[in-house]
């Protein structure tokens, strides 16, 4: 992403944000409310255009997992996957559905309506839809927001497996502890401005080393930069 700016009328949502991610890397986008995290992800996903700047990947090369499960509650797991595989014009939709049922461990729930699944399983289907076209990069907007601790653990294991397979994973989160634990690199946004781009340790060092826990370091980092 190079010098991406997004304006809503007079309001500047993103100001010349640039970064890059390598295959198999997990990048967390963190920042206070209204920082521009979702705007950044939605531009990368092709949901809305940037006012200026470039994104090197086309939206069709990027898998998208919105914060709330974007699937149809009246359709079964398999029907949802098949529908989106067809809409994504995946060459063999049935094979893609079978692959995702195995990958997400939902084969035994394949015929269950989404509305009857737990939040964790719905989120797994949500992620599976994002992975149907086997994209080289996956975007997740607050993926663990509605999950219990056990479901979160399974989610991060699944994401680690994806990254291990070479998929670049970008996720936004409010939980900076998760960013510390599960991200290889961080992007810190505040008021649409990219304040930091580096590893969690580099962020801690930027505010004076290990005298703080990571969350404390993050808050101090923002405070020192006037946020």
């Amino acid at each position, binding site marked *: 992403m190079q010098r991406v700016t997004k304006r809503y009328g007079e309001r500047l949502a993103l100001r010349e944000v640039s970064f890059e991610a390598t295959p198999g890397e997990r990048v967390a986008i963190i920042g206070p409310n209204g920082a521009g995290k979702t705007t950044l992800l939605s531009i990368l996903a*092709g*949901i809305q255009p940037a006012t200026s700047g470039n994104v090197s990947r086309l*939206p069709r090369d990027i898998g998208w997992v919105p914060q709330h*499960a974007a*699937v*149809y*509650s009246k*359709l079964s797991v398999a029907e949802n996957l098949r*529908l989106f595989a067809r809409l994504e014009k995946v060459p063999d939709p049935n094979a893609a559905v079978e692959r995702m049922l195995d990958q997400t461990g939902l084969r035994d729930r394949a015929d269950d309506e989404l509305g009857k699944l737990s939040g964790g399983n719905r989120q797994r289907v949500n992620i599976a839809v994002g992975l149907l076209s086997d994209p080289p990069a996956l975007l997740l907007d607050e993926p663990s927001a509605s999950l219990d601790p056990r479901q979160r653990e399974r989610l991060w294991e699944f994401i680690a497996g994806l990254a291990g397979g070479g998929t670049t994973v970008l996720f936004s989160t409010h939980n900076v502890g998760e960013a510390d634990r599960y991200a290889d690199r961080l992007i810190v946004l505040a008021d649409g401005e990219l304040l930091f781009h580096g590893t969690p340790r580099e962020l801690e060092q930027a505010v004076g080393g290990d005298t703080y826990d990571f969350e404390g370091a993050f808050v101090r980092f923002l405070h020192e930069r006037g946020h």
Partner: protein
Amino acid sequence: MRWLMLKDLQILRRSPLLVTLLVLYPVLIALLIGYALSRGPSKPKVAFLNEVPKGQGSFNLGATKINGRQYAGKFFSAIDPIVVHSRAEALQKVRSGQALAALIIPADIVQKLSTGGLERPTLDVIYNAENPLKRQFVESTIQFQLAKANQALSGEFRKVAAQYIGLLLKGGKFDAFGTNFNVLGLQSANAILKGVRGSLPRGSPQGPALDQVIRFATLAISNLDLSNQVLTSVSAPLAVRTTTIGAGGKQPLDTFAVAVAVTISMMFVCVLLAAGMLALEREENAFTRLARGLVSRLGLVTEKISLAALCATLVALAMLIGIGIFVAVDWGRFPLWVVAALFGAAGFGALGVAIGGWAREVRAASLFAFLLSLPVAVLALVPSGATNQTLYDIIRVISAIFPFRPALDAMSAALSGGGIGLPLLHLVILVAAFGALARLSLRRFA
């Protein structure tokens, strides 16, 4: 787009209660409205007391016998009579609410009628004023029937008078008080007088007097010749020539009621379905996923319009086939029914997606769709002249903005003839306009 439509049909198949309500409710409402439109108001129950003694229902007007019961029958055609035997009983029926009014034919009616208009008989009508609406209905019904009876009687009087004038003019046999005799008549008298005048010697002193009588007879003949027309004008001063204008002029009421019923059903099915299904894409959070290149926004709008139009057309055709079993419809026009239903449904579908796009939530969209559709349909059915011109012009503009009126016109034309091209063109314009509004609403849909 076909996968999206297939998905929507799957969702509908899994929501049987919703689909049942969506189809049954409008069909029921539509059939009720259609039934009400195809029937006139029911006859009001009226207590009827005839005080004319038995065997005295007829009277003589000159040499003509007139039967009073024949004219009382005029009332019975418009009311549901409850025959009573006294004024007290008639009052009791009205007070108790069993009858909305009482109509009393007085005993002296025959005697007064037989005077040929010298004395005017009076009917007594007692109303129940408990319900002003019903009272007005009964009042106008009785007044109307009274006018018809008056007209029939005056016509009878005119005929009798014309007979006498004819006899006076042309002469002939006259039957009065059981005696037959010949009347000479003015025309024959005039001829005789002219013959006598011709036989008088020149300078006869009777000549000028006879000339005077001949002039009077000639004048009387020429004026009495016009008397029948004059009497006709007096008994019915105004004649009515009826000319119908507008497409629905020759349309039977039953067919119009069918068109209204079917159009209302289509409207509810289509508007609610299109509004709900578009709003559902947002409620299920699927819109953001679809909007990133899987389906174009215009494609999404088109899919929802097509889905709603398809479902509503099927409902409309099923209704038409069902109604066609009971009401005479021209089955040869079936292809036109399909065309009218498709265009009408597309118009309603476009309105629905515009509502769904702006309301953004299924419940809000459904409520808004319902609240908007009903008054639009009612306004479109307001006839001209039922309100003042300014208000009617406003109603016409509102009706032209929404698809109900053109859809109804198209369906009426498809069922019973008339121009279908203009309503279809109107619907195409509305589909484009509401489709564009819906597309615009998707900018803030995510």
